[in-house]
């Protein structure tokens, strides 16, 4: 089972997980990214833009990589675009495998790689009326790159 989508509407995590629960699956891991309110409560919404066509190709490639690396029985990547308020879902990654370690590692891989290798851009709309583009985080590059080192996380619990 493979599902990759870029969409404005919300996703139903329970229904998506149900679709991954097939023959041979022993473990099913998932991650949901949610719009987080700023500590000062100042965030009104995130506006997410993407590169149609390229995004889908980039996400399919991440799914290919994860399936090949962890012998998955299925995986899902869904990313929302448009205007999203605090508390709303942004992104869903999930992976199913015979063994729990593979499902957990692949789920983390998908979200870590997506952050640096899929063409999405966030702007923050603040309560005070200002809007600004979010800067890329160097930590995300470091995290994504660590999957390519010899001590990469799939060798760990």
């Amino acid at each position: 089972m493979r599902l990759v989508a870029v969409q404005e509407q919300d996703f139903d995590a329970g229904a998506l997980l149900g679709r991954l629960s097939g023959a041979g699956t022993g473990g099913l891991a998932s991650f949901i990214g949610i719009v987080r309110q700023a500590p000062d409560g100042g965030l009104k919404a995130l506006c997410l833009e993407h590169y149609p066509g390229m995004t889908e190709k980039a996400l399919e490639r991440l799914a290919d990589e994860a399936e090949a690396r962890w012998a998955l029985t299925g995986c899902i990547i869904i990313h929302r675009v448009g205007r999203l308020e605090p508390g709303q879902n942004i992104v869903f990654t999930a992976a199913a495998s015979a063994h729990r370690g593979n499902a957990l590692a692949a789920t983390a891989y998908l979200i870590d790689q997506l952050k640096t290798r899929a063409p999405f851009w966030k702007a923050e709309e603040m309560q005070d009326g200002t809007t600004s583009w979010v800067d890329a985080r160097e930590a995300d590059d470091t995290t994504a790159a660590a999957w390519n080192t010899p001590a990469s996380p799939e060798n760990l619990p």
Partner: protein
Amino acid sequence: MRILYFAWLRERIGKSSEELEPPPGVDTPRALIAWLRTQGPGYAKAFSDEKPVRCAIDQEFQPLDAPLGRPKEIGFFPPVTGG
């Protein structure tokens, strides 16, 4: 070729895409940026600093010094911030 702009590059240039035929000798994204910078104040502002500019040639991420070839499509954008 079709050129696409995203995020603050789109805002500064004032359009999300356009068809342009750069002059001969523009053989890398970096050279294309240098030429675009001469096309008006919006372009000059968008591309005033190349450092935060990333690109994709025919929907594949490429370094600014990659050979441009004869792409159907080139996209310029800041570092990605999805997820």
